[in-house]
């Protein structure tokens, strides 16, 4: 390839477009952050993008006071649900790729329907089932719903990764004397780190950000933070405290943001794993 000149009009246009796109995506975040550090008076007098006169944490403290408890609810729902659905998905994928049985392809096909199923469709059956199990309005029930709903995705991720691994690996381990779970735990799981990260990020984002299941299947003190945030922002009594709203929204969104920042590189690597042989 001929050496590109370091500056050209085309390149300028590309960078200008990229910077514009960045700005479009970042401005809301900037507005939220700025607003959350302002005093209510400052918000009324200044404009959206003005720098706060004094940086204050009142908004953040107040926000944490009202939704902090629900933050821990979300943690209690999300962490077990993410871990269980990831582990079960890995096990499913392992069986569906390495231990095919009669009809396993059909089984996988049907399981994939779960990925296309809208939340709303399962609300009534899920609520009925939870009632039967005595899990209605409990954290455990919400975990169960999220695990079941997430299985379709996690199974898909793991199955597609394991399909790209030569079957000879399992054959070799079988000849070495390893059994079903030894092969899974000692050989396949250690290879699956990128896929595990994809599942963790995907499931964490889905479950943490879920609103519908939270609002339907939890009530009162067991509600997740998304529902609590909605309740806080939608209160119509008194003056609107935008700084508190913004801070609360930041608190609710922060965990997923952090997960992406710290595990994002695995996400891309995992999504493309198996796409290219290397």
């Amino acid at each position: 390839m001929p050496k590109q000149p370091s500056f050209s009009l085309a390149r300028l246009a590309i960078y200008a477009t990229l910077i514009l796109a960045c700005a479009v995506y970042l401005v809301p975040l900037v507005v939220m952050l700025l607003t959350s550090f302002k005093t209510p008076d400052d918000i009324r007098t200044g404009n959206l993008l003005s720098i706060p006169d004094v940086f204050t944490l009142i908004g953040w403290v107040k926000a944490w006071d009202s939704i902090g408890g629900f933050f821990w609810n979300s943690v209690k729902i999300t962490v077990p649900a993410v871990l269980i659905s990831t582990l079960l998905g890995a096990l499913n994928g392992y069986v569906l790729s390495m231990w095919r049985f009669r009809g396993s392809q059909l089984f996988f096909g049907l399981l994939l329907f779960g990925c296309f199923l809208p939340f709303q469709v399962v609300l009534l059956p899920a609520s009925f089932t939870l009632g039967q199990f005595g899990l209605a309005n409990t954290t455990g029930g919400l975990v169960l719903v999220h695990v079941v709903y997430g299985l379709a995705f996690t199974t898909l991720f793991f199955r597609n990764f394991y399909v790209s691994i030569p079957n000879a690996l399992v054959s070799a381990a079988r000849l070495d004397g390893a059994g079903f779970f030894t092969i899974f735990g000692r050989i396949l799981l250690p290879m699956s780190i990128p896929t595990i990260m994809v599942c963790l990020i995907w499931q964490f984002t889905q479950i943490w950000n879920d609103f519908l299941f939270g609002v339907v299947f939890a009530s009162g003190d067991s509600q997740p933070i998304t529902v609590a945030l909605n309740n806080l922002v939608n209160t119509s009594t008194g003056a609107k405290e935008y700084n508190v709203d913004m801070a609360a929204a930041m608190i609710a969104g922060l965990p997923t943001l952090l997960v992406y920042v710290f595990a994002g590189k695995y996400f891309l690597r995992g999504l493309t794993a198996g796409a290219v042989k290397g």
Partner: protein
Amino acid sequence: MATLELRNVNKTYGNGQADTLKNIELAIDSGEFLILVGPSGCGKSTLMNCIAGLEDISGGAILVDGQDISGMSPKDRDIAMVFQSYALYPTMSVRENIAFGLKIRKLPQAEIDAEVARVAKLLQIEHLLERKPAQMSGGQQQRVAMGRALARRPKIYLFDEPLSNLDAKLRVEMRTEIKLMHQRLKTTTVYVTHDQIEAMTLGDKVAVMKDGIIQQFGTPREIYNDPANLFVAGFMGSPPMNFIPLRLQRREGRLFGLLDSADGHCELPLGEVEEGLEGREVILGVRPEQVLVGAGSGALPGIRAEVQVLEPTGPDTLAFVEINQAKVCVRLAPDAAPRAGDSLELQFAPDKVLLFDAQSGERLGALGKARSPERLARVAQLKGR
């Protein structure tokens, strides 16, 4: 150290597909090196997986040291296998790869360490023990894969096309090493390959397979010199055996084959051949090195033919001529090579050429050679299928 015997092994995947393995019948002695060779899809890998226990057989028996193992799970068969893709565990170091099978069998750590050290020394991979598979070249991975198989000192080694992922030079090196290793360890070995040179060089016994049927089972020498049918004759040998369609003529009680080229013709005396051969379509098989050129004795019938193409390979020069509208390859010494367009005097030694039935591909009565009863029985077995 163990004998291996396959008795009437059958394998079918059902649902109306053709059988993958049909009446496989063979036996090798303790310490012998068996080659399963054939084109892709002939069932050789399936047969190997059946021996390993990775696939079940539909009928028959697999005996190791006289004991039927066909119902056992792979881990109880005491068989180790080297895979075409090596199948090294990617997250484990070389040391862990070799030790994995021993650990699962719960050997004491001291014994495992000693065994890993022994295998590493044997294969000269001591300096690689702490590496991961991805940090090694193909040849090194190949060695580790063999090391993993050697570590358990199993009764039987299985090799599934172990050299086909290596480049040509390394392939030849590793071939010699495998042979050397086998001479030293004397472990019963089954080796699958589609490469007829590997089959010839490595095997004590060779089974040539096609469409799930063993076409011929014998020593490499028997397979090469005395092929049972057209397929075996054409598969073994490089360049392959020449096949020349032949018209037969009977005169004064003797049978002659008619050969024609643009430059001449000759009548090849075929001696006493099976009855009723006259007028049938027959194919004459002769290997490139068995066509005699020029100087030959006057006793042999000869035919002149024009050299169309020359292919110098280094040690030999291959000359291609046309006889009976078939391309015939002749192997010549490089310094005796003619030029393209030259005319060569070619002679066929009647006791070297083979005859095949054009329709069935079966070998026809050896020219002048009496068939051993054993061979006849084998042919009968093949025909019975």
